């Protein structure tokens, strides 16, 4: 792509961004859950270490597997929810 053509594309883009408010809201919620679960588990890891299931203590399980799986879930939700936001914009237009 040539640079001047790109500048043109940017200039022609609509100044408003209809998806942005819902995108931002979604991102904030997902980031908040990401932050709360990660650092909540880590901060209270000692207090949670008495809870056991299938051999794992809860903080060990969360650090070794649980959090990673949760992150995958966050990204799945984000991808799907963003599709809905995109589609609803197309419906309005």
């Amino acid at each position, binding site marked *: *792509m040539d640079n001047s053509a790109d500048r043109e594309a940017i200039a022609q883009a609509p100044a408003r961004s209809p998806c942005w408010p819902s995108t*931002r809201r979604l991102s904030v919620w997902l980031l908040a859950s990401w932050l709360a679960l*990660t650092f909540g588990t880590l901060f209270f890891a*000692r207090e949670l*270490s008495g809870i056991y299931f299938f051999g794992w203590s809860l903080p060990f399980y969360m650090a*070794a*597997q649980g959090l990673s799986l949760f992150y995958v879930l966050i990204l799945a939700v984000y991808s799907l929810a963003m599709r809905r936001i995109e589609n609803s914009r197309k419906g309005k237009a």
Partner: protein
Amino acid sequence: MAQKSFTRRLTIYYFWYTMLFIIFLISLAVLEKEGVPRIWIGYLFMFATIVTYAGIGVMSRTSDISEYYVAGRRVPAVFNGMATAADWMSAASFLSLAGGIYLTGFDGLAYIIGWTGGFCLVALLIAPYLRKFGQYSIPDFLGTRYAGKHGSNAVRVLAVIATVIISFTYVVAQIYGVGLITSRFTGVDFSVGIFLGLASILVCSFLGGMRAVTWTQVAQYIIIIVAYMIPVTWLSAKHTHLPIPQLAYGTTLPALNAKEKIFANDPKEQQVRAIFEQRADAYLDKIQHLPRSWEEGRYEAQRKLEDLKSGNASLIEIKTAGRELANYPQTPQEAETRWNEARSANLARAEPPASNFLPYAAKNKEDSDIKRNNFMALVFCLMMGTAALPHILIRYYTTPSVRASRDSVFWSLFFIMLLYVTIPALAILVKYDIYTSLVGTDFSKLPSWVTYWSSVDKINPLVNITDINHDGIVQLAEIALDGDIVVLATPEIAGLPYVISGLIAAGGLAAALSTADGLLLTISNSLSHDIYYKIVDPQASTQKRVTISKLLLLVVALIAAYVASLKPADILSLVGAAFSLAASALFPALILGVFWKRANQHGAIAGIVTGFAVCVYYMLHTHPLFGGNIANQWFHIAAISAGVFGVPAGMLALVGVSMLTPATDMHTLDLVDYIREPD
């Protein structure tokens, strides 16, 4: 629709590639049964995988600029996910992470959390917007977003400098890893190993740029994941009767805890630990009597050598004594540092085995809190760093659309998660095996992997098992392991044929090569695109730009290989620091560029410089390697997590300076609106 048939074609290609790879594995297994020596199996593995990567490079050769820089922007989300996963998983992830968890337990899990959680930031804050922006590099994005009255070059140059410093430290470590793996498995010299690996990297990225690197990385991901899963699945079936290690290893944890309690009170174990304590005390005594003890020690070593020479000692004895003398500390100062190190090493081995699975285990509440804070700080830096590493971010330029880039981050994390949830399982299962099978064995019946791996590296042995208390039986306290051995020896520990060890080597090599490929391309592309094309010669033809990029790639690769062949200890320990550096320098500018319209050029300059400076200052001030002192730490945070201070400092500087200087112009506001809107 063309995209759909392209995806289908790729799926068919990689399906057959995987099948061929499995057939190759089986035929090697047959060859091994027929008595082909293990060194040849090692050679075959190295040769076949390197030729495959080079072959993909030759097939994807290109000099089209969009193909070369961003693989033509038509990499399907799933395949880009695999390529990013291979790009992401370095030699350290593959070889050292499991060992870290084996040795430090819960503390080692910070890397698992940090290196997966960072992708949430990549997806939510950066990747879709970069794709919408749709250019070629990270400095390109930052430069254009933070353009000022006099153009975009100020931020662009700063971003190039940061990109090059971060990626270069990282690539040296990868090439070092390549040398280590090839020399350990084929017995070739370390520097020969480096240049062998380099040849395959160059054929691939030199000929086909991002296009070749992408398709090679997908192939490498398949090897990485197969290589990791086979031995750990086997081990899981052996110890838990369930061949799904990720689910099964929990059942071995209570047994491990019980074993550790027994080891703590076992009289023989206590006897060994007491010997280590005596040795530590002997070092303390020598340190307290410096410099006299140093002179006496040297005299003693000289006299021993002369006695042996004049007596009828064997040549080996004389040589050992000679080496001891040559190795003796040159000055009393050196003696002090070395003896202090030896003392703490002995003291560490005198400790009873602590339960590894409890978070932040420490002697008192205060130390435990410090451990917790450091753990959280490290997780924070690894996450922010992940979201700011240029070689990862540029991968999201290669997808066909913004939607595909979002899906692609999901797939990246999915494929990374597959390996990362297996790493702790491997560490725990190996530990279980060592506790139950190795401890208590007769010294005359040590398993063959112990003898093999203890002879591979003479200076820093990967395994060292010595009969400290001379009872002829292995005690846990007598075993000293290097972290890497946990992965390297797993196939043999699990009782699998040597072919699987070769597979592990191929996997480690794939992990190191794929990361090195991506990093070299990132460095050379940002130099050729952002410095040469955007600043030096904006009139350059596309042909010339690709040629320059290829030349730079060659030069950077050779410099990196040369630096790696010097085995620089300080650069290698800097790799962890690369995350803090990336986070401090680039993260604030990247996210505020999208999420805060008021952020302007002055703010970005201030943010990048301040973040970088604070991070570097903290490292220099607190890391003993750079002449710093641990006593200078703020809130007892280790140097590797300097980003905890760098990121907020960079943010504050960016916000503060932006507020004090004129608002962004209309053109930039339009740009921000443009990238915020999915296409």
